[in-house]
């Protein structure tokens, strides 16, 4: 069975500082990794994905994520946080061995303070 862990329930960062939201995964086969964001009272929005190739992937709103196969991690990063980045962030995984099942982590709330 595949799984995703987001070890931090909440991450606090000051505006202008870099941010990291952590994600580790477990799958059999090749992982396909995703980050989504949820603003209050909204559905989930796709941010970025890793399928293959370059380990550093860039996505929407200045976010990027680094795939690390040896550490089975896919951490979300941004060089300079904005107050408007405050939201709930979810990491998700599927694989070439799990049919089309998409499994999410527990979510991390990002709070960016002015």
């Amino acid at each position, binding site marked *: 069975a595949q799984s995703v862990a987001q070890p931090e329930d909440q991450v606090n960062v000051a505006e202008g500082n870099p941010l990291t939201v952590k994600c580790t995964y477990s799958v059999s086969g090749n992982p396909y990794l995703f980050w989504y964001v949820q603003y209050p009272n909204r559905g989930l929005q796709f941010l970025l994905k890793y399928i293959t190739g370059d380990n550093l992937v860039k996505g929407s709103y200045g976010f990027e994520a680094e795939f690390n196969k040896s550490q089975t991690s896919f951490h979300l990063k941004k060089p300079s946080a904005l107050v408007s980045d405050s939201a709930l962030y979810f990491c998700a995984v599927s694989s070439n061995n799990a049919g089309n099942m998409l499994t*999410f982590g527990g979510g991390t709330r990002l709070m960016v303070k002015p």
Partner: protein
Amino acid sequence: DVKVTQSSRYLVKRTGEKVFLECVQDMDHENMFWYRQDPGLGLRLIYFSYDVKMKEKGDIPEGYSVSREKKERFSLILESASTNQTSMYLCASSSGSYTEAFFGQGTRLTVV
């Protein structure tokens, strides 16, 4: 613009009622998913479907069933609603395991 539409944003039902949550996508996607979202528990997969009339159980299928008679529509059925099924329900669709999923706005279901 791509769209996943859930029939209701808010729903209040009584214990024991049969409840239908409807989801429609206009992207001709093969895969459709039902998740429930609870504080501290993230998104948990209830069921997903990879083709018409095909379904697979997710992590928490107990107390739920699903129906996919047409490619664009995926229904979640609560056979006999209970208070522990009070939650936010999210529908999603995707075209494959390596493509992003698109989500509906969610249905907040309260069972009283």
